[in-house]
């Protein structure tokens, strides 16, 4: 009987991952994530952020090294253990970057109740969890809609709701704010901050440095050479323009309004 240690969340030890055809995706990743941490996963496109999230969710397995969740290794073998899988899938939820991949059911209601039903939760509770998840994200009116009649913002909410109905302890989110308008982004961030109370853990990948500031207590940066280049508090790295440029997190001509990371002079006609 594999027991879960809920005091430990994720560990990666000397983790390597290759894409099919022996193309390097991740090299020598070592990290530990504990309860209550809000971790931002940063890196340019192609740096392996989605891959790492999928590894943490036990959907793919390392080429070398290992990934542990709640103290137990995540491997093809361990995920054949019925009770362990049930517990693991219940506690960890992954929201994919492309909501169309996650919205595979015929209606929003079917989608939101899919997880709890698969986890053998009794019918009555499935119904109440489904309703609660929809209410939580203000999408109860979308209940009977089929996915092709949802806007992209609505799809993202349904995707999140369908994971929340699992009542997970850990949320993994792959670029949750990408494609959202600023108002929705702000809403989502507020929601996640509320959700993360009481010891829940969050790991989210993003390209948006502003989101990192508002939400993350810790930052992990994947470099362009597939290794982990930074792991620590946001302030340590995000005010270092050279670092940001080196890791392709900003462009020479970009600037942010939170902190002055201008690299070149140009005229503004508005005030900071």
């Amino acid at each position, binding site marked *: 009987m594999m027991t879960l240690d809920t005091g430990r969340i994720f560990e990666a030890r000397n983790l390597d991952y290759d894409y099919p055809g022996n193309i390097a995706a991740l090299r020598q990743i070592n990290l530990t994530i504990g309860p209550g941490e809000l971790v931002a996963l940063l890196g340019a496109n192609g740096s392996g952020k989605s891959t790492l999230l999928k590894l943490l969710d036990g959907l793919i397995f390392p080429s070398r090294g290992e990934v542990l969740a709640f103290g137990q290794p995540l491997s093809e073998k361990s995920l054949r253990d019925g009770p362990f899988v049930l517990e693991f899938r219940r506690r960890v939820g992954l929201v994919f970057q492309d909501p169309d991949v996650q919205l595979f*059911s*015929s209606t929003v209601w*079917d989608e939101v109740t899919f997880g709890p039903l*698969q986890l053998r939760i009794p*019918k009555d509770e499935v119904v109440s969890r489904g309703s609660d998840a929809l209410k939580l994200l203000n999408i109860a009116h979308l209940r009977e809609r089929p996915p*092709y009649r949802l806007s992209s913002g609505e799809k993202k909410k349904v995707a999140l709701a369908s994971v929340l109905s699992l009542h997970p302890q850990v949320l993994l989110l792959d670029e949750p704010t990408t494609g959202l308008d600023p108002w929705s982004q702000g809403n989502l961030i507020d929601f996640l901050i509320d959700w993360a109370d009481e010891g829940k853990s969050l790991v989210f990948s993003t390209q948006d440095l502003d989101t990192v500031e508002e939400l993350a207590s810790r930052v992990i940066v994947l470099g362009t050479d597939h290794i982990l280049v930074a792991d620590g508090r946001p302030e340590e790295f995000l005010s270092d323009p050279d670092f940001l440029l080196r890791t392709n997190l900003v462009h020479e001509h970009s600037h942010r309004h939170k902190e002055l990371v201008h690299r070149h002079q140009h005229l503004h006609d508005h005030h900071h």
Partner: protein
Amino acid sequence: MKSEGFLSRNISNITHILESVISAEDLCRAPGLLQGLDARVKVATVVLFIVVVGLARSLPILGAVFVLILALGLLSRIPLGLFLKRILIFIPIFTAVIAIPALFVTPGEPLVTVGTKVIITEQGARTAGLLVLRVTDSLSFGVLLILTTRWTNILAALRWFRVPSLFVAILGMTYRYILLLLHTVNSMFLARRSRTLGSLSGGENRRWLAQALGTTMAKSHHLSEEVYLAMLSRGYRDDGLVLNGLSLRRWDFLWVAFALAAASLLLWINQL
């Protein structure tokens, strides 16, 4: 081969499908007679009547059934124009065209002589009429079902009728992703058309089409992998675990009685 024709035809094909899906869905929500019936009852009724139509031997019976169909459409708030368009356009007209030679070719008693040599036989006229009416009636029942029953309920009804849950699960998911792929492909067509000045040769169109199809196939393959991971991530183990919202009411029993009575009457008259 003018590129305008080729692209536009395909675009309008796709657009037409997408629109008819949406309009069908809206009609399912109208407060009509058939909309209020249980999906299982409707599916069974439709199959029953198509078989009755298949066993009929006389034109008056098939004509009476058509009147019944129109009445049901009216009572279910289906706009007459839309209904007639869906049940008469294409297949019945196509059938009528196919049936024309039968007027002359079927051996039997002469009915009408066209010119000096060409004879339309009684048997020919009757067989053409039987075919066209039979095809129209059968098709119309299918249309009534689709316009008054929500897709998820049709799936639930199939499950209840013991159609293997594997098939039903695939059926549901296929439909969902057909709509996604149609959107994707339509965008490809529209983009191509907007970039095309003048007409392209048949060869250029074919090459482009091959690429579009190949890309779509690869996308389907990619999606299938990702969807599987998304399902796994929420604990996927079994097909057919869906909250079934179907329940029989008094109207359903009344309808079953009516349908059986009508079918019996028609079959009895058929024997005479």
